């Protein structure tokens, strides 16, 4: 008896198979759609507004001038400063904590608790870290009597970055083969020497990639800043300005999007353009670098 093994397109299982494939393909297209729509719109709408003045000047208070809303220069600077403060706090603490988890801890209760806590902390809504910093730092004026400030904003962002930095350090160090640690310890190096001169350099690239991605996320955050750093219409002029209200791209977008004036709305679009370009740029470059490294 000869069997017919040819593909039978009308068989019900083959029809449902093709249908399901089609559906999953449609889902994938829908998933990609928002990115394409948002980015195209931000690039076209925001990009058309960009000029040098806009990147440098301070914004005008809403309603003052209906034609010209000024620029976003101080917001760009503010975003960099507060992200910088957040990095200065969260990178040392996070890398240190990650080193402990990966290199020293022996899966005891304490390290399991820290890992658990890291996961929980990364799930805490960003607005809560704003509320926390507001209650602990802004209201109490503990930092040299300043209330709303760039410092407070930076601290709120650092709480968001901390779990990311710990996790990427922990995971990055875990990828370093044990052979390498043994090699160093085997010639009589201490744990400190081994970590600083052998293990950390070997995992530098993957840790750096993770940290930079975490940094990019923090730079785009708004919720922790709206009542910690608040907003400012002015450029900073001296170092002590970090103890006062500070503007950021994200808070500028939020504030000006809801203004009834066209000029302010346009400034929000321009700020979105700058923010999206910076963040996508960082994302794509760091991914490219880590891909290149892994191919080598």
């Amino acid at each position, binding site marked *: 008896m000869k069997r017919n093994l040819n593909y039978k397109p009308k068989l019900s299982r083959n029809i449902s198979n093709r249908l399901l494939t089609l559906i999953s393909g449609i889902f994938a297209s829908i998933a990609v759609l928002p990115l394409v729509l*948002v980015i195209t719109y931000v690039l076209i709408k925001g990009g058309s507004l960009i000029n040098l003045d806009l990147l440098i000047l301070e914004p005008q208070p809403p309603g003052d001038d209906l034609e010209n809303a000024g620029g976003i220069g101080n917001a760009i600077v503010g975003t960099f400063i507060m992200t910088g403060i957040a990095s200065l706090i969260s990178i040392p603490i996070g890398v240190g904590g990650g080193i402990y988890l990966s290199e020293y801890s022996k899966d005891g209760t304490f390290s399991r608790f820290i890992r658990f806590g890291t996961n929980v902390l990364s799930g805490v809504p960003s607005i809560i870290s704003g509320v926390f910093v507001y209650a602990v730092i802004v209201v109490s004026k503990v930092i040299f009597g300043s209330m709303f400030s760039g410092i407070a904003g930076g601290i709120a962002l650092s709480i968001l970055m901390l779990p990311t930095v710990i996790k990427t350090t922990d995971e990055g160090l875990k990828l370093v083969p044990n052979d390498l640690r043994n090699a160093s310890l085997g010639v009589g190096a201490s744990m400190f020497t081994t970590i600083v001169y052998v293990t950390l350099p070997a995992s530098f690239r993957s840790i750096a990639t993770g940290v930079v991605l975490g940094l990019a996320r923090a730079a785009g955050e708004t919720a922790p800043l709206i009542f910690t750093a608040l907003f400012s219409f002015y450029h900073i002029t001296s170092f002590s300005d970090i103890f006062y209200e500070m503007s950021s791209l994200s808070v500028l977008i939020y504030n000006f999007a809801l203004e009834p004036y066209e000029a302010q709305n346009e400034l929000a679009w321009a700020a979105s353009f700058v923010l999206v370009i910076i963040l996508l740029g960082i994302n794509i470059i760091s991914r490219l670098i880590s891909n290149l490294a892994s191919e080598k």
Partner: protein
Amino acid sequence: MASNKDFLLRNRTRPEKIIDKGFKSLTVFMASMVAFVLISILLVVFFESTEAMARYGLKFLITSDWNPVTDQYGAFTAIYGTLITSLLSLVIAVPLGVGTAIFITENFIPESIKNIIGLMVELLAAIPSVVLGLWAVFVMEPFIRPFLSLLYKYLGWIPFLSTEPIGPGMAPAILILVVMILPIITSISRDSLNQVPFKLRQAAYGIGATRWTAIFNVILPAAISGITGGVLLALGRAMGETMAVTMIIGNSNNFSWSILSPGYTISAMLANQFGEADGSQVSSLMYAAFILMILTLIVNIFAQWIVKSLSLKY
């Protein structure tokens, strides 16, 4: 025998030992900072809200007055808004996200296109919430309003669709939440599907299963713990998501079952009112923040537990 005179540090010097020990203590201290921050957040939010807890008790959870003038506070509108927006966004995002993940892990399309789709979904996660909010306000909401009006026209008898869409509201908030949690669900599902061992797939195909029979009966069940964990993480994210929601939800404390009407979420309420609040309003907002924290905490801990206990042993 080798001469040892050239090696001055056969015995470690005191400073070297101190640095070695000190470094370890330093890392222990830094690791403890995580626990310290987490516990401080819990305690601070809890103690700041004790006044409102004492005054309003559990009634706070089921009443929806929010009046700084009469000092009457109830968070029901915001709690309802938080739950309904996050759950409905999940209902839409889970099939989309898991479907996309299947599409880019099973070999339907060439590797390079898979990678591009995967990259695009991950880049979507890099777009700040506030930019998505801006886009939702000026582009998405005006675009979808006619469709929402149709829903109201034909399905207005359903309580959840019983008001006329007039602009910002819970429905556009749900859609923007879908955009925000889609990357989490997709990337975690993709990772879980990629971890399903090849031998399991082979076993399914080897007994004559079609591709989708294999996906539904073998591959998805094997990846289910990771996917469920990812879905729960997404739920936590959706409940705590602030900016985009605040910009598009309408910020209204008037309670309505309908998702076509303006509403509130806890995080939107915090973003909107915290800056200018004083007196018992601060405490009431802290109470709401505490509720939000407990909700996300439960979801996140549950997510971790699911991932640990449901993971299949191959």
